C-alpha cells in the first residue's frame, strides 16, 4: 500500500529525498522519546498511588522538555584520571545506533526511510553497537562502580543475543523474507499467535539487552548507584538517558513490527495503529518495571544459557517442521498447536531446570 | 518471666570452684576479680545448670575511683539472667580481659567501651576506635573528659 498522496521518490533527486525524510524521522523519533519519558513517569506514578510530574505545563507535558533544557545547562564534568577521549565519545557511540534503527522501521504503509531487504538483520547488527558505547562509558569514567556496571552490561548482552536472534529467525521463516515491509505484509495472523514462544523469548531477551527491569543490572540503583552513567553530567548524561529510552522505543517498535502486525489493523488509520501498539508494548515494559525485583548477575546468565537458549532452539525446530508441513487449509490451525507447545515446553523446562545450582528451593 | 538469679547463691557455687575470685556479691549482681573473670565467665557459660549462652549487654561506668564493666548475661533455655561486674582501678591505662572468646556479642560493645572510656581489652581481635576517628585524643565518656 504505497504512500498515496506523495510519489515514492518525491523530490526527484535521491539525496534531497533522503535528507528531508531523515530529518522528519529524526524529529519524530526524538519527540516520541520525550513523550515516552513523560509517559513512563506518569504511568509509573499512577501505579504507585502518586501523581507524577504535573507542574510543568498541563499534566506535566513539558517536564521532559524542561529536563532536557536543564541538562543542557548543567556543567559537564569529566573525571580527572578518566580516559578523556573514551569518556567523551561514549555517549555518541551509545546514542547514534539507536537512531539508525529507526531508518528501517515501517511507520506507515509505505513510510519507511530505507526499505532494505535485510531489514531485521540490519537492526540486530546495529543494536549491539550500543553495548560498545556503554562499555566505553563504564571504562572511561575511571570509577569502580561504573566499571562493574559496564562489565555486567557486556556479559548480559552477549548471553542474550543468542535467544533474541534465534527467535527472530523463527519469525523470518514464517514471513519468508528479512525485509520489514514483507514481514508486516505476511502477517495476516499476527505472529504473536503463531509464535507465542518466539514472542516470549524475544521480549525477555530484548528486556535484557536494553537493561530494563527485571534485568537492569547495569545501572542497578540499589547496588551500583547508577552503573555506567555515574560520572556523566550535563549533555552527555542527556545523550545516555535518551539512548536508554530510544532503545526502549526501538524495541517496542521492533516487537510491534515482528509480532503484532506492524501498522495493520481493522478500522483505525494505519499510522494510529502503529502508535497504539508501540504505546501498548511500552506500557507493558513500564508495568514490569514497577513490579518485578531485579535478577542477580549469575541468575541472569543462567536464565539465558539454560532456559532461553535451549527453548529458542526448540522453537526454531518446531517452526521449521511446521513450515515443511504447510497446511492446505490455513495457518489458523497452527495457533492452538503452537500455544499448547509453548506452554508444555515452559512447564517441562522449568521442572528440570534448577537455577542457582539447585540450592534454591522454592 | 526471666528469673533474675541473685548474686549470692551464684557466689556460693563459684566460691567452691574459684576461691578468692568473688570480690563481693550483692542481691542482684556479682562482682568478680578482673584476673579470674575469664574462668568464671567460662564456668557460667558452660555449666549445664547455668548455661548463660546469651550476653545481652556490656556497659562501662566511670566511678572516678575505678572503672566498672557490667555484663548482663541471659540463658535462653532456662530463661534466667545474671549481672556480672568487674572493676579496674588504674586510670592511666586500664586493661581488662576480653570475653569475645566466649561470646562474640561483646565484639562491638567492647570496642565501644575502649573507644569512649579508654579501657583496653586484652585478647580482643581488632581493638580499634568504633565511633570516633583515629586521630581523636581523649575518651569522651570519662567523667574528667571536659
Amino acid at each position, binding site marked *: 500500500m504505497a504512500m498515496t498522496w506523495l510519489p515514492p521518490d518525491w523530490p526527484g533527486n535521491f539525496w534531497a529525498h533522503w535528507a528531508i525524510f531523515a530529518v522528519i524521522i529524526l524529529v519524530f523519533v526524538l519527540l516520541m522519546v520525550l513523550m515516552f519519558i513523560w509517559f513512563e513517569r506518569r504511568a509509573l506514578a*499512577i501505579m504507585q498511588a*502518586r*501523581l507524577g510530574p504535573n507542574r510543568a505545563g498541563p499534566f506535566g507535558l513539558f517536564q521532559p522538555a524542561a529536563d532536557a533544557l536543564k541538562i543542557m545547562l548543567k556543567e559537564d564534568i569529566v573525571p580527572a584520571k578518566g580516559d578523556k577521549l573514551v569518556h567523551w565519545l561514549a555517549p555518541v557511540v551509545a546514542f547514534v545506533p539507536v537512531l539508525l534503527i529507526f531508518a528501517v522501521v515501517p511507520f506507515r504503509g509505505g513510510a519507511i526511510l530505507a526499505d532494505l531487504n535485510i531489514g531485521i538483520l540490519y537492526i540486530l547488527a546495529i543494536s549491539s553497537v550500543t553495548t560498545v558505547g556503554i562499555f566505553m562509558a563504564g571504562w572511561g569514567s575511571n570509577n569502580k562502580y561504573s566499571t562493574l556496571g559496564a562489565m555486567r552490561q557486556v556479559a548480559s548482552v552477549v548471553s542474550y543475543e543468542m535467544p533474541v536472534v534465534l527467535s527472530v529467525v523463527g519469525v523470518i521463516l514464517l514471513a519468508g523474507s528479512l525485509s520489514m515491509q514483507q514481514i508486516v505484509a505476511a502477517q495476516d495472523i499476527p505472529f504473536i499467535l503463531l509464535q507465542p514462544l518466539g514472542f516470549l523469548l524475544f521480549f525477555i531477551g530484548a528486556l535484557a539487552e536494553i537493561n530494563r527491569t527485571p534485568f537492569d543490572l547495569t545501572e542497578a540503583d540499589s547496588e551500583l548507584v547508577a552503573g555506567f552513567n555515574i560520572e556523566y553530567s550535563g549533555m552527555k548524561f542527556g545523550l545516555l538517558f535518551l539512548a536508554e529510552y530510544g532503545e526502549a522505543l526501538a524495541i517496542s517498535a521492533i516487537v510491534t513490527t515482528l509480532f503484532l502486525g506492524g501498522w495493520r489493523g481493522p478500522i483505525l488509520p494505519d499510522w494510529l495503529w502503529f502508535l497504539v501498539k508501540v504505546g501498548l508494548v511500552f506500557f507493558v515494559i513500564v508495568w514490569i518495571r514497577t513490579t518485578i525485583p531485579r535478577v542477580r548477575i549469575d541468575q541472569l546468565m543462567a536464565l539465558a544459557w539454560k532456559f532461553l537458549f535451549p527453548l529458542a532452539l526448540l522453537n526454531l525446530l518446531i517452526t521449521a517442521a511446521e513450515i515443511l508441513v504447510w497446511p492446505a487449509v490455513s495457518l489458523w490451525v497452527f495457533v492452538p498447536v503452537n500455544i499448547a507447545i509453548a506452554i508444555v515446553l515452559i512447564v517441562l*523446562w*522449568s521442572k528440570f531446570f534448577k537455577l542457582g545450582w539447585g540450592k534454591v528451593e522454592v | 518471666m526471666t528469673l533474675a538469679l541473685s548474686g549470692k547463691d551464684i557466689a556460693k557455687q563459684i566460691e567452691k570452684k574459684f576461691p578468692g575470685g568473688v570480690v563481693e556479691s550483692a542481691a542482684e549482681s556479682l562482682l568478680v576479680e578482673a584476673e579470674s573473670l575469664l574462668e568464671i565467665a567460662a564456668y557460667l557459660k558452660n555449666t549445664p545448670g547455668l548455661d548463660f549462652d546469651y550476653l545481652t549487654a556490656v556497659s562501662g561506668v566511670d566511678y572516678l575511683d575505678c572503672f566498672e564493666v557490667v555484663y548482663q548475661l541471659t540463658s535462653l533455655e532456662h530463661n534466667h539472667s545474671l549481672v556480672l561486674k568487674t572493676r579496674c582501678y588504674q586510670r592511666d591505662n586500664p586493661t581488662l580481659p576480653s570475653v569475645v572468646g566466649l561470646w562474640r556479642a561483646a565484639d562491638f560493645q567492647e570496642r565501644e567501651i575502649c573507644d569512649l572510656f579508654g579501657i583496653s581489652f586484652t585478647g580482643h581481635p581488632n581493638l580499634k576506635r568504633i565511633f570516633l576517628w583515629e586521630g581523636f585524643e581523649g575518651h569522651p565518656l570519662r567523667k574528667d573528659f571536659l
Partner: protein
Amino acid sequence: MKFERYGLGIAKGLSVTIRHLLRRPVTTQYPEQRLNPSRRTRGNELIWDKDKCTGCGTCAKACHIGAIHISTSTDLVNNKYEVKSYEVDTGYCIFCGLCVEACPFEALFMSYDYERAQYRRGDLVQGKEEMKETPERKVSGYFYPGRAAKLPKQSLLVDNDRGKR
C-alpha cells in the same frame, strides 16, 4: 529461579500494580491543597501570654537546650516581677513541648502554625512582641485540650481525606 509455579507469583504481583491504575492517588498538592494538622500539633513557634506570665523562669529551666532567655526586673509599683525581655530562639528549639508542660501558670503554648521558616538565622529568635496570640497565629491544643475545640478537625488519610482544593 525455578519457574515451578510458572510465573504465577509474577502475574499476581502485576495484577496488584495494574489495579492501582483505577485508584485515586494519595498525594496532596501542598501549596494548593492543604491538610489540617492535628489539633495538638507542636507547630514551629511558641506563643506567650504576657499577663498570665509571672516571670518565674520554670520554662527556661525545663528547656534542655536553653532556647528560652528570660530576664525580669522588679516592678516597684505593684510589687511583683515584671518580665523585661523574653526571647525564644526557635533555631535551637526542638519543639519537644517540655516547657509548655512545665509552665505552672498556663502562660506558654505551642503554636498551631507550621510555616514559620525564616530567611535569616537572626529572625528565628522570637522577641516579646511577636509571641502574642493573634487570630492568624493560633494556639495549638497541645497539653491544653480545652483550647483544641476551636481548631479545625485533623484530616486523616484513614478517612481518605486529601485536603480541600
